[in-house]
């Protein structure tokens, strides 16, 4: 059991936790956090797994950097949407009844 | 490419372009629309005449290109296709004239004539298709372009009929597609060829070939209204009269029958089909359809429905003819393709005239109409007698040739079918004729309209009379060159000695 493999395993566990949260929790912000946790897990795997076999590898680190940028963008968008959704419907989850159900004519 | 390659394309394009132009015309452009319609019909007729002459002399018309990998799109004019093309070209002209009169002052005419032209373009394509794939292409196009015509009235009943129509035809299309794809997998891309492809087919694929044949007939049989796939036809009667005329006489049912002819002769080859043992069951099925539909027709009280069942019965003559193994019978079947078209279109025109002029839809309302509308009734009478097979009309020629062919092929039972069917035809047509001519008219017609000097609008008056005259002529002059019978014999000559 090398350290990188440990990272990878930890990443896998984080993934699991994130997945659980994403599917199980209903509050949108919690879902968002769960997504971020899962993302971190994936990044860990991405960095950890290659180093377990081939030693230092710069490529995954570059990838993860990019990945984090993407994740931040996604999170930002999600937050904006959740906020506006709450603003319009007063709901914090997708399961409740929103104010207007049918798509009004455009 | 030479001009000859393009003539079939032009023939196709005349109605296709007409369709597009008509779709774009405003609803009020009555005069222009009529001009476009009739002009296109005349041009097409001219092109068909040119091709008929050319095919007779042995000129090759056709073009092909690869459409989907492994499959070619082929347009080709041979004797058989010219028979169908000629039918549709002539009758399109007349039906257009009729439809112009019939739909006067009714809404949605642009839509109607647009799809009408599309429908004819598909029919032309079916006639000129050079392989099964191309055939299928236009076959489905026909389904789609006739749907709006069937539901044209937009009533609940019309829409229900349209749904039935679609369920039948699209399912049939799916089966046909399966069969064609399978055949393609088994034997590759087969062009229609006189004499067929499977005369010396590998015995290993015989089983597949038989199954494919069954599927093909099932797919095509929907449009040809073979029992038990005929259910849509009587329902489609809610369509306006020109549409019924077109559906029954030219386009839809004929497309199915024509397809079966193509499959038997130009894909399998009549000898191979006979050797596979698929022809005789087909003949039995056709015979049964002939009788069954005639019996059903007896009990119909709606004129158009009765005519519809009559169509089901009559179209099976074509199939019966091709499924009897023998050149004479084949000529009988093929010639009926045209004869039935002429006779049935006459009858439907007349039915339309009665409905449009006097508001008559039911047979028991027809008492004494012969006095009010002698011209139409005369045409109706000729059409009905033609259907019965009374000499010297078109139907007689069919029956005579078909009967002789059946005897030559050693299938004597066909004579019994022919005789029985004629009796049944007489049983459901003659009472109508009696009403027309010998009953006293009722005090008033359901909804009478007047058009001045003639008994009805001139647009409606002349087409049935013309087709009635043609019904007589193709019968009386059956032995002239270029008569339908002679042409059918030419086809058969080429099919049996490729």
């Amino acid at each position, binding site marked *: 059991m090398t350290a990188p493999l440990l990272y990878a395993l930890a990443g896998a566990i984080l993934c699991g936790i994130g997945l659980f949260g994403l599917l199980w929790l209903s509050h949108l912000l919690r879902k968002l956090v769960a997504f971020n946790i899962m993302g971190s897990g994936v990044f860990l795997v991405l960095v950890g797994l290659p180093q377990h076999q081939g030693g230092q590898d710069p490529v995954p680190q570059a990838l993860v950097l990019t990945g984090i940028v993407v994740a931040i963008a996604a999170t930002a968008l999600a937050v904006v949407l959740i906020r506006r959704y709450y603003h319009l419907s007063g709901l914090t989850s997708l399961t409740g009844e929103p104010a207007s159900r049918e798509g009004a004519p455009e | 490419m030479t001009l000859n390659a393009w003539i079939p394309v032009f023939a196709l394009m005349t109605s296709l372009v007409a369709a597009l132009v008509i779709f774009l015309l405003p609803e009020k452009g009555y005069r222009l629309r009529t001009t476009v319609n009739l002009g296109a019909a005349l041009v097409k007729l001219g092109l068909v005449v040119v091709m008929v002459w050319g095919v007779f002399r042995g000129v090759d018309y056709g073009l092909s290109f690869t459409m989907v990998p492994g499959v070619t799109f082929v347009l080709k004019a041979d004797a058989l296709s010219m028979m169908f093309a000629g039918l549709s070209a002539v009758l399109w002209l007349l039906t257009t004239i009729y439809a112009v009169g019939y739909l006067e002052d009714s809404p949605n005419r642009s839509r109607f004539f647009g799809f009408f032209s599309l429908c004819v373009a598909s029919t032309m394509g079916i006639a000129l298709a050079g392989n099964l794939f191309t055939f299928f292409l236009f076959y489905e196009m026909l389904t789609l372009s006739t749907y709006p015509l069937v539901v044209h009235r937009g009533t609940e009943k019309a829409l229900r009929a349209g749904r039935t129509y679609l369920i039948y035809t699209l399912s049939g299309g799916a089966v046909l597609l399966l069969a064609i794809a399978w055949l393609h997998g088994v034997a590759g891309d087969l062009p229609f060829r006189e004499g067929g492809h499977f005369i010396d087919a590998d015995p290993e694929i015989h089983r597949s070939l038989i199954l494919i044949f069954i599927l093909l007939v099932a797919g095509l049989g929907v449009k040809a209204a073979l029992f038990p796939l005929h259910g849509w036809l009587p329902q489609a009667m809610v369509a306006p009269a020109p549409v019924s005329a077109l559906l029954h006489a030219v386009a839809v049912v004929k497309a199915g029958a024509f397809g079966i002819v193509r499959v038997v002769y130009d894909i399998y080859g009549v000898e191979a089909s006979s050797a596979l043992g698929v022809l005789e069951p087909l003949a039995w099925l056709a015979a049964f359809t002939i009788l069954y539909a005639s019996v059903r027709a007896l009990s119909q009280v709606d004129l158009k429905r009765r005519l519809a069942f009559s169509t089901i019965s009559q179209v099976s003559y074509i199939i019966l003819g091709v499924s009897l193994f023998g050149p004479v019978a084949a000529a009988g079947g093929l010639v009926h393709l045209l004869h039935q078209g002429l006779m049935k279109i006459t009858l439907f025109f007349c039915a339309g005239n009665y409905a449009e002029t006097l508001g008559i839809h039911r047979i028991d309302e027809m008492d004494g109409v012969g006095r009010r509308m002698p011209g139409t009734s005369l045409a109706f009478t000729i059409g009905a*007698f033609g259907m019965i*097979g009374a000499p010297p009309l078109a139907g007689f*020629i069919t029956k005579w040739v078909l009967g*002789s062919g059946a005897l030559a092929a050693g299938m004597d039972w066909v004579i019994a079918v022919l005789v029985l069917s*004629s009796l049944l035809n007489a049983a459901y047509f003659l009472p109508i004729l009696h009403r027309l*001519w010998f009953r006293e008219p009722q005090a008033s017609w359901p909804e009478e309209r007047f058009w001045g000097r003639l008994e009805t609008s001139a647009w409606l008056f002349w087409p049935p009379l013309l087709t009635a005259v043609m019904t007589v002529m193709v019968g009386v002059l059956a032995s002239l060159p270029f008569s339908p019978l002679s042409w059918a014999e030419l086809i058969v000559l080429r099919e049996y000695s490729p």
Partner: protein
Amino acid sequence: MIAFESVLVLLAVGLPLLYPILALRAGWARVLRYSMPVLPLPALVLALATEPGWQLELPWLLNGGLWAMDELRRLFLLLTAVLWAVAGIYAVGYLGAHYLQRFCVFWGLTLAGNIGLTVAVDAGSFYSFFALMTFAGYGLVVHEGTAEASHAGRVYLVMAVLGEMAILAGLLLASAAADSQMLSDLPPAIAESPRRDLMMALLVAGFGVKAGLPLLHFWLPLAHPVAPTPASAVLSGAMIKAGLLGWLVTLPFGDIALQGWGTLMLGAGAVGSIGAAVLGVCQQRPKAVLAYSSISQMGLMVLMVGAAMADSERAPVLFSVIALYALHHGLAKGSLFLSAGMSLPAGRIRRAAVWLLIALPGLSLAGLPFTSGALAKLAMKEGLAEDKLDFALGGYLSPLMTAGAVATLLLVLRYFWTLSGTLQTGRNPPMLAAGWLMAIGVSLMAFWWMPWEVEGLVKSPLWLPAPYQLWALIWPMLLAVALAGLTLWATRVVRHR
């Protein structure tokens, strides 16, 4: 010369065929009416002025048409033309304005069919004309529009269609066997075909409907009486013979001896001639009586047909007798039918004269000496003479003929009886009277100049039977008169009590 005949035959068929065009304009009703007698004239000229043997090829027609003329056809054509002509004249006076145009249209079409079928030699056009006559005849039958006419029309149509189909099937089978469309090729082919009996059954039955063969005759007593009088005349005089002609030209007579079929036809003829008489004398209406009389007379002809079937050697001779008999019967029966539509004049003498004229064709039918009937009966007797005929049942023919003769006169007497009850007093339209007179004249006088053939059958002078023949003709008549008198007396007695 060929051209002359070709033009004439085309005219003979084409004129009545195109005549209905006149009905297109409502204003032409008069033209329509007065041109009725003209229609059969080309056919008449054709029958009288041309020698048989010409033929006209019409390769474009149907499956290849051929029209031609031989001795047999010539007599049938003559009968048709003459009868239609006099009936046409009669009709001009007879018809009212009631659906005149419609009647004329069907008249012309029926006539075209009737003439056409006598000249057509190919199966296609023969059958076409036959069918045209049949279907157009429906229009004549139901013309009056009464419930009875409709009923009669329905029966007529059903049986006619059945007959047509039998003919179609028979012709199809035969022409397939012969591999030819010409009628003259059919009989030999039928004779040799393994399906001979089927074909013969179909053709016998098919034409038998028209010819009033027993059990196929039901339409006849219904249809003939309800039709307008001139139409009844041609129905019973000319059109009924078309069935006979159909047999003669399609069945194998000279080729093979068919004892079985001969026997069958003999039986049918016997049943027809006697049975129809039994039914006929029970009828109340004169035209119904005449209709049964037609069936009865056709029964006699069927006897000859049966004999011709049985003995192929004798067939040609019998053919000419049949033709002669048909001609005689057609003319006489036509006259009788036309009489049914007459009105009696007021004066006693004129009345008697009219009655005499009415009676003469009837008696001619029964074989009164010096009439066509006597000649026909004698020819028939000679033709069916037992010793010359190779037919197992030949011995029954003579008594049957005698019985037939008795039956004939009984029916004629019954006709007079019923007619006397229905004839009304009044004036006849001139054309009607003219037509009637001409019919009787033709039947009694002109007949003798017609081109029939009885060579070797009847001793000359033809119109004067030999004494022993005279007795043979007369005693059945006497018997019939006696029977009639007895019946009359018996009814009086019964009624008195």
